[in-house]
């Protein structure tokens, strides 16, 4: 031990200026920063060291929060965290910080006793409390590292709850297994959506005759993935434009972007309904958008009700949206309407108009695998160079897919799954980029490296309004392209010397 006795006030003066102006326009904040060199937020050394164990500045979080978000997209469902009280509290806070919405979820409030004897008593009491007090139609239980490790058998506990009469007639309890030590928030989301299918979807009892099927609008299931409520709404619009009636599974629109009414609705109006879930078997197909977040549910629907599955990328950017429209076209037996073709045309128009600004710009992309894969393709279509691409979620398929997308245009791109933002930052110190695209956590790197930054994905904790605007579909791609251009051109204006500071760009 170093036995240091020195008072650490030599870090710089730490006193606030006692005298502050008594005037209406006085700054609201009175604080004093170190007057010497400012504090250094950037603790990342450029030299990339081999780390065997340590995770610094993670690019993922744990499964339960994804399960909670998915369950919020089920109408009149209360998500339930089977674990310690803190898990539920953290997930609710984190979701609230992104969506700026109240997030309702209950917890088993584990105690020391539960960790020894199991959490059965807690879950039974919780089910009773929830139905008598909050009267949801459905309780969606997800597990945590703690309940998984002590080995709670949720189906058995839920059966006991039913036997004991704790589950009122017509109400439901189901669960997804989401230990925090496996996968990431994305796989937790996937597990909960798959659990919805496995617990409620029914195979249609009688085959609807082909002739009758032709008469009414065909139904299709779309699993949108871990995206914004606005994305789910946009996917619904796109699907309807293509002449199909979608079941969006799950659907957080109208829940996590509920309008201001002056009342606090415990269960807002949105969410996929139980009726829709039961009728998944009537869909002509299940379209999974994003392999990581949505594939499991599509496989489940195929197994349970013989609905064929289509696994696509998240429809972010031109190519991926084209592929979605292609599948919908095939399933609807209908050509895309003129309105949709116009949207596509406007996107290509913008890509052409601004091509010189996109061209050759180096980009670092990070976030959830489905988002990052689609974004990488879009950036590449914009003639940009995604040179550094990571996700925190584990999975070798990610590296393979991204490398394949970039094989021609950016052959030397650095791609890594199960990575963290500390590593990405080290890479960027050695090889700077023109733009960073990712969630809020990228702001530390963007600031340290003075690099333009576009917020994209989840979570966005420091901006507002993102839940209202889609990034999927042609319109979403237009919005993303605009955001990227704004970031690049703001920087150009900022850095231009007076003589090169131009009115028209």
């Amino acid at each position, binding site marked *: *031990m170093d036995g*240091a*006795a020195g*008072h*650490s006030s030599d*870090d710089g003066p*730490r*006193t*606030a200026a*006692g005298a502050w102006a008594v005037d209406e326009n006085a700054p*609201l*904040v*009175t604080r004093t920063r*170190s007057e010497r060199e400012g*504090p250094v937020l950037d*603790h990342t050394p450029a030299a990339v060291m081999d780390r*065997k*164990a*340590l*995770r*610094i*500045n*993670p690019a993922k*979080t*744990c499964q*339960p929060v994804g399960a909670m978000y998915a369950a919020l997209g089920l109408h009149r469902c209360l998500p339930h965290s089977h674990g*310690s*009280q*803190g*898990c539920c*509290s*953290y997930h609710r806070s984190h979701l*609230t*910080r992104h969506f700026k*919405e*109240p*997030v309702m*979820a209950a*917890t*088993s409030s*584990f*105690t*020391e006793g539960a960790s020894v004897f199991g959490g059965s008593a807690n*879950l039974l*009491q919780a*089910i009773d*409390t929830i139905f008598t*007090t909050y009267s949801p139609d459905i309780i969606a239980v997800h597990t945590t*590292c*703690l309940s998984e*490790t002590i080995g709670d058998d949720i189906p058995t506990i839920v059966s006991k709850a039913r036997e004991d009469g704790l589950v009122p007639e017509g109400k439901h309890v189901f669960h997804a297994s989401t*230990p*925090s*030590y496996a996968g990431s928030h994305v796989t937790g989301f996937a597990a909960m959506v798959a659990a919805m299918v496995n617990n409620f979807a029914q195979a249609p009892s009688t085959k609807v005759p082909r002739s009758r099927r032709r008469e009414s609008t065909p139904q299709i299931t779309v699993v949108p993935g871990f995206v914004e409520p606005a994305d789910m709404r946009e996917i619904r619009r796109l699907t309807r434009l293509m002449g199909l009636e979608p079941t969006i599974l799950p659907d957080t629109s109208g829940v996590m972007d509920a309008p*201001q*009414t002056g*009342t*606090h609705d415990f269960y807002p109006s949105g969410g996929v309904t139980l009726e829709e879930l039961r009728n998944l078997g009537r869909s002509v197909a299940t379209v999974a958008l994003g392999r990581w977040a949505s594939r499991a549910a599509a496989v489940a629907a195929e197994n349970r009700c013989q609905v064929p599955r289509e696994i696509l990328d998240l429809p972010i950017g031109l190519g991926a949206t084209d592929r979605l429209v292609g599948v919908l076209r095939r399933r609807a037996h209908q050509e895309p309407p003129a309105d949709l073709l116009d949207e596509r045309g406007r996107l290509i128009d913008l890509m052409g108009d601004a091509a010189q600004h996109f061209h050759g710009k180096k980009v670092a992309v990070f976030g959830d695998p489905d988002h990052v894969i689609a974004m990488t393709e879009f950036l590449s279509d914009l003639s940009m160079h995604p040179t550094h691409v990571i996700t*925190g979620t584990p999975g070798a398929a990610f590296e393979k897919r991204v490398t394949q997308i970039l094989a021609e245009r950016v052959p030397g791109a650095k791609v890594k799954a199960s990575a963290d933002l*500390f590593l990405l930052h080290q890479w960027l110190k050695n090889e700077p980029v023109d733009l960073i695209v990712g969630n809020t956590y990228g702001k530390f790197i963007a600031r340290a490296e003075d690099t333009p930054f576009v917020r994209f994905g989840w979570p966005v904790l420091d901006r507002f309004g993102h839940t209202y605007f889609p990034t999927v579909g042609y319109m979403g791609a237009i919005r993303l392209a605009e955001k990227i251009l704004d970031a690049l051109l703001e920087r150009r204006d900022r850095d231009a010397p007076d003589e090169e500071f131009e009115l028209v760009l």
Partner: protein
Amino acid sequence: MAEVLAARRGQVTRTGPAPTDLVCDRRSTAGSVSQRACTFCGSRVVLYPIADAVHLVHGPVGCAVYTWDIRGAVSSGPQLHRLSFSTDLRERHVVFGGERQLEECLLELIDKHSPSAAFVYATCIVGVIGDDVEAVCRSVAERTGIPVIPVSSEGFKGTKRDGYTAACRALEQLIGTAPTDGIARASVNLLGDFNLAGEIWIIRDYLQRMGVEVVANLTGDGRVADIRRAHGAGLNLVQCSGSTLELARMMQEKYGTPFRRVSYFGFEDMAEALYGVAEHFRDTTMAERTRELVIEEIQAALPIVQDLRADLEGKRAAIYVGGAFKAISLVKALRTLGMRTVLVGSQTGNAEDYRHLAVLCDPGTVIVDDSNPRELAAFLVEQDVDLFIGGVKERPIAYKLGVAFCDHNHERKIPLEGFVGMVNFAREIHASVTSPVWQFVPRKEQARGTSTFSGKRS
């Protein structure tokens, strides 16, 4: 009366002729949508602001992510505490144990950042798989020569309050490990101030002007070297009593350091805190300086506050915060603004604080312990409040109801402590309460009987 969970009836009361003693300090009912967090959360918020230490969260990645830079605990120097370090335990560690992973992480971390100390937080799973965190910490401390302190903060062990205790135990291990030469007689430690938005600098400035030396900040803008000699201070000032009162009691027992419970919110409590310090050191010139300071500060602040009060007079306020001791200060501060507290509660208040609140508040005020969103929303509507003071989970409920809001928790962005803090508090409340947005809230339009699309604004 708004709907209250049957099992929670004892945790809600109303002031009046026959108020009942509040049942508190108990576990939340399983299945309740509680606003509370866990033991880990309690430890993490207390220790997190120590800026030259590394804070390693031993467990799956989530617990480290949810506590990554979520609190504006400002540091004037190192920013190491703002990084997120996790052992990122995976399935194989759950099966084979995480001790090796922890040791490797610690060694890598200490090698990379050369911190003054390391705190290792145990999460739920560590308690179940049986890692000997203490042994690993001991061995790494020996190898690296810095204090490596285990924090026994497994989430299931109790409430946030139990996490405070675990944090105090961890601090206990640091205190008393460095010489105290040269510390003035008139010296204090600041306990339970986390320097949100730079608040502790305001308090340090007042103390400096009074002639009082501050030995250690516990823990806002805290430094390991200061904390190690904290036992040399003449007095502990304990704010946010829930989190560090236990440390103060421990220091009194072990080192004979006396302590005073203080609050830096509002004119009354801020002045009382400073006078209390002068009184403690029985120094008449210090007392005189303190009087001058208080007069000077209040003279500067009062006109602004009174000006704002004109618009706030008679407005109704609700408070739901972490600890009830803070709520007491807020009730008084709101009174300074002419506002009446009609609902007050906390996550972790104790019986004594609630009794104090019951005496302090006007008749008819609802007092709640460990409340939940449905209950809070119902009371907010029933009590027809104009302002809600709370934290991250309360904010969107207020906004959904069309009620003004002030964050008095982690996410406050302006200093609310001190005399200047009272001005900031008044300004923030004024800005939110008088915002034009609330007139557009459909519920209020309907109540007023105005037609939204008539083209007229009432």
